[in-house]
Structure formats: structure tokens, C-alpha cells
């Protein structure tokens, strides 16, 4: 379990709590823990896309489970972030079918354009480039996940446009 000094402001708003309660209602009353994965997604989305230990403790409290039961899940699944990440995380699928269509070259291009290496956040905190495993979009490569959505059949021009749109705040990250 990665423990860091990053600080996170916890804000369990009423709409978020309503959604959490709705998700819990999808499972039998004595099986609330089943709602853990969907709830973590909602909580993470509402907290700048990462989960501090304190936030995980909060989720444990809501579900009436031990904090370790949340930590062990968060550390297992790749979509939960345990540290602050770039606001716009470009998650390129870098599994072979995508690489056949030039993903590695396009990732190099994107990193060069942003002046970062894979895994680094730009100094303004806006961008991060990451390689992730198969996203199930092999026929539409190269592609990336950005928030809840896929950006497919990417080219250098489309990357330029995407970066511009992110800077202009024209990108919707979550479908709420």
C-alpha cells in the first residue's frame, strides 16, 4: 500500500451520497460490500480522480467494512489512483493490436508535444500520458481513454486538437 503525504479535501456532497445510497440499493441489504467498486468510481470522480487513504477510510465507514477491505481493492484494480493525477489523463492503449497501428510512435509524439515522459504530469497539472493494457477498441487504433470516454482512430492532428480542447476546457470527462 502506497502511503504518501498528498493532501486531499474530502467532500461527500449530497448528490454524491444520494448516488452512493442508490448503488447500495442494487444489492441485498446484508451484501452492501458488493457496491464497493461502483462506489469507489463515484467517489474518485468527485475527488479529482484519486483516492487518498482518508477518502478510502470514509468509504469503509459508509459500507461498514474494515479500511483494509477498501485498500486491498483499490490497490488491485488499475482504474483507481492512489496519488493525484493530471486533470486530463491520456491513457493510451499500448497492447499489441493497437501498437500495430502506430500507438508507440503516437505516444512519443504526444509526450514530445507536452514535454513530459510517460507517467509524468505537466507542470501546470493539466496533462499526464500513460500506457494502459487493452481497452477493447483494437479495430479503432490508435486510441486512448480520456475520463469516461474513448478517443479513437487518433492521428497527430487529432492529438493537437485534443490538447487544445483540453486547454480550452471543452472536454467533458464524466457522464453524470
Amino acid at each position: 500500500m502506497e502511503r504518501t503525504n498528498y493532501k486531499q479535501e474530502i467532500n461527500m456532497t449530497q448528490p454524491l451520497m444520494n448516488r452512493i445510497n442508490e448503488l447500495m440499493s442494487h444489492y441485498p441489504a446484508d451484501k452492501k460490500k458488493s457496491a464497493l467498486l461502483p462506489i469507489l468510481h463515484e467517489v474518485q470522480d468527485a475527488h479529482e480522480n484519486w483516492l487518498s487513504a482518508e477518502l478510502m477510510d470514509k468509504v469503509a465507514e459508509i459500507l461498514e467494512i474494515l479500511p483494509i477491505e477498501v485498500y486491498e481493492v483499490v490497490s488491485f484494480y488499475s482504474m483507481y489512483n492512489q496519488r493525484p493525477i493530471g486533470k486530463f489523463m491520456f491513457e493510451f492503449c499500448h497492447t499489441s493490436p493497437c501498437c500495430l497501428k502506430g500507438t508507440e510512435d503516437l505516444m512519443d509524439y504526444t509526450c514530445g508535444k507536452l514535454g513530459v515522459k510517460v507517467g509524468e504530469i505537466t507542470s501546470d497539472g493539466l496533462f499526464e500520458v500513460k500506457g494502459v493494457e487493452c481497452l477493447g477498441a483494437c479495430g479503432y487504433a490508435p486510441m486512448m481513454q480520456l475520463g469516461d470516454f474513448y478517443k479513437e482512430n487518433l492521428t497527430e492532428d487529432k492529438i493537437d486538437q485534443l490538447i487544445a480542447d483540453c486547454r480550452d476546457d471543452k472536454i467533458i470527462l464524466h457522464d453524470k
Partner: protein
Amino acid sequence: MSKKILLDKINVPGIKTYEVYRQNGGYASVEKAMKAMTPDEVVEEVKKSGLRGRGGAGFPAGLKWSFIDKKSGKPRHLVCNADESEPGTFKDRYLMEFIPHLLIEGMITASFALGANLSYIYIRGEYMWVYKILERAIAEAKAAGWLGKNILGTGYDLELYVHCGAGAYICGEETALIESLEGKRGNPRIKPPFPAVSGLWANPTVVNNVETIASVPWIVNNSGDEYAKIGIGRSTGTKLISASGHVKNPGVYEIELGLSVYEFMNSDEYLGGMSSERPLKALVPGGSSVPILPADLIYKTANGEDRLMTYESLSDGGFATGSMLGSGGFIVYNDTSCIVRNTWNFARFYHHESCGQCSPCREGTGWLEKVLWRIENGQGREEDIDLLWSIQSKIEGNTICPLGDAASWPVAAAIRHFRDEFEYHVRFPEKIKNRNHFVTEPFAQVKHLVGNQTV
């Protein structure tokens, strides 16, 4: 045009919505099953259809259903496996995104057949926008009376929910999926007990792939016998194939099982041939786990028969000269592709996705990745090729779940069919420095160098 039963209405404008789906005959199978059939009769039709699990394993769906424990009196569950993550596979996403009500109709009819009152669709977390599409479609179906209490006045109750994962290939394995649905790490369970006896919350559970469940409405509407007339032999019905790589028209296609691989590859109705003038080098026909086939074993089997898109024909010759239909993830490679790099990439995938429970897989996949990387990176040793063979043979069959096998098979097949390419990497490290080394100089042009040098 071959027969379509899943995607036949995909181009109807508005088919995503309940109204249009219903106007086009949607939900008829629910009415027929609940009003004119018993649950066991529905199971019987699915058995007769010969429908086989479309997630990759190809186990007969009706038989799987018949194993569900109805005697214990425990609540039963149907769980749809929408955790599509096998590299090369993107068919379920297409179906759920563009005709979500077909899956929901199938879930209701199949839940009725199994006597399940609480069912789930487990979708991978990355398909978040599809999760929302399904949530909305379920709400529409419920508002129209297809879900909830006393459906169609039959006294049958069903609640259906979508549940999202969070990025773990292993959750496509049915017991890992169940663990994940219970809010835990996706560690596969030891079988037996099988989910049909002890699955979700220790209740009898059936886990089926999206495409399998989406085939049920047609079978109920038209009968299992009619479904069994489509296809060839034990490969009945249609199959969604997701095609990627160096082809002209990548995408998702519904084919009648029995179509020839040649026609699928080259006909304009399907892939339309290669994407450039570069020739075909290799094919992975059923997702990254299945053995890769070299060019001379793609269109013809080792016996010289036409290779067909069926479970039997694609596996003809066993692993020596055949492969598997698997999930239908059809990945095409032209001669600019490097088989070593592709194999390393897949090994990295399996290493990343290993849950870590079983030592042979946890450690072995890491070894495969590292040894393959040093070969691809020009630091390979002659004995590394035999080392890879040894590692994969020690993972296969020695793990709780099939991820170990899935990691081993691609490595074994690559060495079996492309050993000279590995040897080239080891002996000519200066020629493979650039990762696109075969783009400028395809292996066929330098292959003679390997033959000239003895070790």
C-alpha cells in the same frame, strides 16, 4: 449476405431506444417464454440450439444452465460477463453500445429460464459510457413493465442491475468476476464448487458472455432447432468477430459459423483484404491467448482442407498446426510486424494482469516478459529461446484459473512457428535496434542470414 440474428437491426435508426426496439419486435421472447413456455422448456430450446459460450471457452450454454442447483432452494442469479478485455476482442461493447435492449431482453428471458430473481451485468470499468447506456436502457425496460414485480402478470419477479469493474482482465474469469461483484479483489476461486452450485454470495449462479445471452431471444422466438440449422456441425449459429490489425476494414462483423477464413479476410462484405500492399504474415484468430498461425496455416489446415471459421476447423491440427476460435478477436499481421515484439507485448499484458495468487503465473509471466524484452531489445542469449519454452511449459496447467495457460500459449506458438525470427533477434542485435525494424526490412528479406549461421 450471410444470416444475421444479433446485428440484423443494428442499422435501424433509433434502435438504441426502447420504443424503436419494441416496435421492431423487441421483447417478444420474454412474452413467449413467460406466457407460453415453462422455464425448463426455455432451457431445452437453448440446449437444442447447440449454442456454445461466446466468451472464448465454447462450452455448451444449455448444458451450463442445466447444472444450476434448483434443489437447494437458495436464491439463484444470472450474471452477464461484459468484462470484455481479451486483446483483440471488442464485440460485446459494440452490441451493448448500439443495441443495448437485445442484451436486456436476453437477460430477462434467460433469468426466467434459470429462475433467477436478481441478475447482474458485470461490465468492465473502462466501458463507463456503455455502463450508462445500459443503466438507462434498464430503466426504460423497467418503466415498460419488463422488470420488477409480477412481470406480465405471471408472478415472476426480476431485478436487473449493471455493475462496473475497475480495470482487471482477470475479472473475465467467471469466479474472479463473482469475487469482484462481491466487492473484493478479482482472485479466481478453486473449482469445484462450480458457480452453478456456489457462486455469487454462495448462491447458485450462471455466468454467461454478452453475446451468448444476446443469442437467447432469437432461439426462443424461432426455436433451438432453427438455430442449429445455422452453421456447421457442432459450430451452430452466428458469431461476432472483431477484426483488428493490418486489414482494410477493421471492425465488428456477424458471420455464420462455417464461413471460410479466406472469404472473411478478403471479401468486401467483410475485411476487404490487407490494409496495404504488404503481404499477410500471421493471424491470431481468437484473441491474444490463442496460438498465432503463420501465413501458410491460415487459409488451409495442415491437411490441405479449407480453414473455416468454426470451433473445429480453427483448432484442426491441435496446437501443432491449429489455433482456436476463442472470443473471435481476429488480429491480422502483415510482414512489417515483429513476432518477437508482439509476443513480448502480450507477455507484458499477462504479467500485468496476473492476479498473483499462483506462483507459476505470478513469477512465470514476469520471467516471460523480461526474457522476451531482452531478446527484442538486442540483449538476448541463444539459450533464451529454450528458456522461454521451459517457462511457459511450467506455467501451463499449473494454475487455479486459465490465465496461466493464456499467457503460455502465445509464447509457445510464436516459438513453434517463428523460431528463426527469435534467432535473428539474438544473432543480429544491431539490426533490431529500432522498434520498427521490420518496417524498412521485413524479416523475409533477412531470413537467409539466420540459415547461414550455425551456433
